[in-house]
């Protein structure tokens, strides 16, 4: 626990979650734009 | 094509949700008056502020020409004669001192102010804060006509006047119109206006 592998894994998970969340936002905004 | 003319097309301005001015268009040439009528809050004052360059419209265009010269909006602001209820001057200064200040700012000889004070029956010594509403309205006319403008924007020009005040103001207005100036006058419908060349009714 606490070694570089663990830290890298945690960072990768956070980063992946962030990109997924932003992509979802991107899609939501595209729907809003298409609404007009 | 008249030497002096003012034309505006599709002028609109909102203040947040409130549509103060919606798609106003009209034009007027030197020697005539454009009479702007409509209920309270229909955008008469907003229109005049836009024409005076004191407010930027959201949409629409304003084209002004003075004695054959096209005026950009900044230049137009310095050339118009603008009378409106919310125009105020410096409380601490007298009528004469206020006019002298604006004469210096416009690069005019002080004599202009003196003539207008006299024509409008204004005692120059009384400080602005001590003036009655009628006297303040006279001073607004004196300020607006200091530089003998060819484009007059008059928002409720005869409010607070007594008979003498209104007569003096109407004389000065007639002189400017005879000299080829144009005027856009926003006033309640019961005010009679000379030489009305056009009418703009704002919905509100």
């Amino acid at each position, binding site marked *: 626990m606490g070694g*570089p592998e663990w*830290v*890298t894994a945690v*960072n*990768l998970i956070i*980063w*992946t979650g962030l*990109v997924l969340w*932003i*992509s979802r*936002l*991107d899609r939501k*905004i595209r729907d*809003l*734009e298409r609404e*007009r | 094509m008249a030497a002096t003319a003012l034309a505006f097309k599709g002028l609109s301005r*909102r*203040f*947040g*949700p409130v549509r103060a001015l919606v798609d106003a268009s009209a034009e007027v040439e030197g020697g005539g008056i454009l009479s702007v009528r409509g209920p309270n809050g229909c955008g008469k004052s907003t229109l005049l502020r836009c024409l005076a360059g004191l407010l*930027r419209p*959201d949409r629409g265009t304003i084209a002004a020409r003075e004695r054959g010269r096209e005026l950009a909006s900044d230049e137009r602001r310095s050339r118009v004669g603008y009378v409106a209820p919310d125009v105020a001057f410096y409380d601490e200064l007298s009528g004469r001192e206020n006019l002298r200040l604006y004469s210096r700012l416009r690069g005019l000889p002080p004599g202009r102010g003196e003539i207008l004070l006299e024509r409008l029956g204004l005692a120059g010594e009384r400080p602005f804060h001590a003036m009655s509403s009628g006297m303040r309205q006279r001073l607004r006319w004196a300020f607006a006509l200091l530089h003998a403008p060819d484009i007059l924007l008059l928002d409720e020009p005869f409010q607070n006047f007594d008979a003498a005040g209104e007569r003096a103001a109407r004389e000065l207005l007639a002189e400017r119109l005879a000299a080829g100036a144009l005027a856009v006058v926003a006033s309640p419908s019961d005010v009679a206006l000379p030489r009305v060349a056009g009418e703009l009714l704002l919905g509100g």
Partner: protein
Amino acid sequence: MKRLLALSLWLWMAVVIWAAFHWAPLAAGFKGESSRILFFHVPVAWVSFVAFMTAGVESVLYLAGRRDPRHDRSAAAAVELGQVFAVLATVTGAIWARIMWGSYWNWDPRQSAIVVTMLYYAAYLALRQAIADGPSRARLSAAYAVLGLVVSPFLYFVLPRLGFSLHPEPVINAAGKLEVESRMLAVLTASSLGFTVLFYWLHALRRRLGAVAARRDEGVE
């Protein structure tokens, strides 16, 4: 296409994260692994600077151009994001300071520069709240953002050199001279690039959202 952009950004930063913890060497003179935080602290601080400069440029475009509301929205979006990245930079900086010098905050000149910059753009956001009329809000906040372009260099370069003289004791600054090895430099640049792309992606999203909101208010643009 958008999916490809998101995927490549994800991959790029994934590699950066791996490299930061495995491939890049440790900087000399740092306690344990603490120098690794630099691969995130420096780029984030850099991106907040880029964001605030973007706001300044967009504001110049707004004022000098046709007062296009899009530039105003873009400037406001850049400032909001700039503040997020500035907070991240401050937090990572404080963590690192805690490890290096035992205290989260010791008015290290660079810390004071980023904090005062955050104060500046917090004032920008406060100004936007204080003005109701759209065009006036845009015009006046744009002026303050452009003034930011003039003030920021003094905040970033003059204030730190002064050691923030309101705090008399001279401040030891171990990271002043950072001998950067080539591999470290590679990761640092890659990370900065990744975060910059992330910023412009978020900025684009915020702008598009603003446009939709504006269209809804106006009825029709």
